[in-house]
C-alpha cells in the first residue's frame, strides 16, 4: 500500500542509510524505524550468537592454533610465528593434494554443469509426464549421504564383487578386468562418476529454474524474426542462461572442493595418496599420529585464503547482485 515495491526496498537497503524506508512511511517517521530495527535485531540475535560461538570463535581460535606449536609431542603451546605455514607450503604432499583437489573439483563441476544444462534443455521442452518422472529421478541422489553414495558405487564397480566389469565385458565383447577402485586413472574416474551421479541434481535444478524463468516472448520474437532453433538456443537462450550457469558452477565448485566422504569409502585416498584431497591432509595431520593440530589449522587457513581470494568478488558480483 504505502510501501514501495519490494525491489526498491532491496535497493534501498543496499544504501547505507536506507532513507527510502522512512519516505515510504511518512506519517510514522523515525520512531517506528528505530523500533523496527530493534525488533529485527532481536529476531536475528539467536542466530548470530550461535554462529559466533560455533563459527567465529573457532575461526579465531584456529588462527591462534596455526601460529603456535600444538601437538602431542610438545607440551605447551610456544609461539612459532609462520613456521607452520611454511612447513605446510613446503610439503610436497600438501601441494599435490591441493592440486588434486582443485583439478577434481574443476572436472566434476564442468561435467555436472554441462550435463545439468543438457538435461534441463531437453526437459524444458517436455510434457508434464516426462517431468514428473525425470525430475525426481535426477534430483534424488543429492539427498543421499556421500558416504552411502560411495558405498553404492563401491558395490557396483569393485572388481571382486561388482557387476560393472562383467557387463562392460558383454558390451565390448572382451574380458574387462579393470580394478576401478585401485588402478589410476580408473579410481579417479570412479570418484568423478560417483560425484556426477550425486550432484548433477543440483546443477540441473539451478539451471532448470533459470530456464523456466526465461520470458517466452523473447524466444517467440526471435522465432518471428526468422531465427531457427539452433540460433535461438545459441543467441537467445544461452546468453539469458549465463547467470544460472554461473551460479550452478560457482556453488558446485565451492562444494566439490570439500570432496572427502565418497573418497574415504571408495579408495581411502589411495593407493598411496593418489586420490587424497586436501581434507585428507587436514584430518591425517590433525587427528592421527602426533595430532598436529597446528599444522592442520595452518593448512586449513592456506586453503581458506586461497578460496576467499577466488570467491570474494564472485559473491559480491553475482550472488548478492
Amino acid at each position, binding site marked *: *500500500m*504505502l510501501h514501495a515495491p*519490494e525491489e526498491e*526496498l532491496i535497493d534501498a*537497503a*543496499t544504501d*547505507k542509510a*536506507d532513507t527510502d*524506508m522512512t519516505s515510504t512511511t511518512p506519517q510514522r517517521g523515525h520512531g517506528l524505524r528505530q523500533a*523496527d*530495527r530493534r525488533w*529485527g535485531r532481536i529476531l*536475528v540475535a*539467536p*542466530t548470530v550468537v*550461535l*554462529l559466533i560461538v*560455533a563459527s567465529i*570463535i*573457532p*575461526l579465531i581460535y584456529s588462527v591462534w*592454533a596455526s601460529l603456535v606449536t600444538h601437538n602431542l609431542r610438545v607440551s605447551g603451546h610456544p609461539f612459532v610465528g609462520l613456521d607452520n605455514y611454511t612447513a605446510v607450503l613446503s610439503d610436497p604432499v600438501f601441494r599435490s593434494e591441493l592440486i588434486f583437489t582443485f583439478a577434481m573439483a574443476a572436472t566434476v563441476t564442468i561435467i555436472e554443469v554441462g550435463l545439468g544444462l543438457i*538435461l534441463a534443455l531437453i*526437459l524444458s521442452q*517436455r510434457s508434464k509426464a516426462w517431468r514428473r518422472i*525425470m*525430475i*525426481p*529421478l*535426477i*534430483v*534424488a541422489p543429492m*539427498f*543421499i*549421504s556421500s*558416504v*552411502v553414495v560411495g*558405498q*553404492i558405487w563401491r558395490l*557396483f564397480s569393485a572388481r571382486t*564383487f561388482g557387476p560393472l566389469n562383467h557387463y562392460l565385458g558383454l558390451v565390448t565383447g572382451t574380458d574387462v578386468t579393470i580394478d576401478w577402485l585401485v588402478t589410476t586413472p580408473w579410481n579417479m574416474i570412479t570418484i568423478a562418476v560417483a560425484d556426477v551421479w550425486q550432484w548433477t541434481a543440483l546443477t540441473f*535444478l*539451478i539451471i532448470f529454474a533459470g530456464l523456466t*524463468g526465461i520470458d517466452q516472448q523473447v524466444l517467440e520474437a526471435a522465432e518471428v524474426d526468422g531465427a531457427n*532453433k539452433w540460433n535461438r538456443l545459441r543467441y537467445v537462450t544461452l546468453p539469458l542462461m549465463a*547467470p544460472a550457469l554461473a551460479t550452478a558452477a*560457482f*556453488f558446485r565448485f*565451492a562444494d566439490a*572442493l570439500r570432496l572427502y*566422504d565418497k573418497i574415504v569409502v571408495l579408495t*581411502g585416498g589411495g593407493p598411496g595418496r593418489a586420490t587424497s584431497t586436501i581434507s585428507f591432509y587436514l584430518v591425517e595431520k*590433525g587427528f592421527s599420529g602426533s595430532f598436529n593440530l597446528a599444522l592442520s*589449522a595452518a593448512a*586449513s*587457513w592456506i586453503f581458506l585464503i586461497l*578460496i576467499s581470494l577466488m570467491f570474494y568478488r564472485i*559473491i*559480491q558480483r*553475482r550472488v548478492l547482485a
Partner: protein
Amino acid sequence: MNADRKRWVRIKPTYVVGSLVLVVYGLFVLIPFLWTATIAFKPPEDFVSTPPRILPSAPTFVHFKSLNGLNAWTGLRNSLIVSLASSTISVVFGSVAGYAIARYKTGGRNFSFWLISQRLMPPLAILVPIFLLVNTVGLVDNLIGLTLIYSVFTITFTAWVVRSFYIMIPDDYEQAARIDGANRVQVLWHIMLPLGVPAILAGGAFAFVVSFTEFLFASILTRTKSTTLPVVISHMLGVQATFLGPLAAMVLISAVPAVLIGLLFYRHAVTGLSMGGVKG
C-alpha cells in the same frame, strides 16, 4: 495443443535423441541404486555367482536382522535424534532471522554477505577448533555436541530459504494488521509465520537431510555410543561376501528416508542449496 503437435512432428529426430539422453541418464541413476537394493535381499551365495545374479534367488530379510549386531540401528537412532533436534533448533531460530532479514533488512548487505560466506566456507576450515571446543566442554561422543554443531551448520541456510520466501510477500498483510492494532509480535506469530509455513517446513526438511547425511564432523566428534549412521556405514569396508548384504541393508535404511524427505521438498532445493543465487 495444435502448435505443440506440429512442433513435435517437425523436430522428431531431436525429440528422439533427447528422449534417449533422458532414458540413458535415468538408467545411469537407477541401476547402481537398484543393484544395491537387490543385494540387501539376496542370500549370500548370490553375491559370488557368475554371471552376476540380478534378482535374488530367494528373497531374504536376514541382512536386516543382522544389523542388530553391527550398530546400524543404534546409528540410525542417533542420526534421527541428532537430525530432528538440530533441524528444530535451526528452523526455530533460522526462520525468525530469515524473516527479519527479509522484512527489516536487519544487518543490511554486509550481514547477508556474511551469511553467504558461512555457507561457502568449507566446514573443515573449522574442524580443528570445533573439535577442541567440543572437547573442552566435554561433549565429544555426545549427541548434544553434534546437535549443536549441526544446528549452526544449517541455520544460515534455513534463514536463507525463509528469507527468500518473505522477500516475495508484499508488506500489505503486515501493514493491514498493524493498522488494525496488532503489535510486531502478534503480526509475526499470527500472520507472517503461518504464511511462511511452506518455506519453513522446506528449510527444516533440508536441515534434517544435511544433518542426517553429514559424515566428516560425525567421524571426528563421535567415538562409540553416539556414532551416526553415515559413520557406521563408512566402517563397512570389507570385501567378504558375508559383509555385502548388511552393508546394502544399511545403505537402504540410510538412503530411503533421506530421499523421501528430500523429494517432498525438492522444489525449494534451489533456494536452499544455492542460497537464492539463481536470481543473480
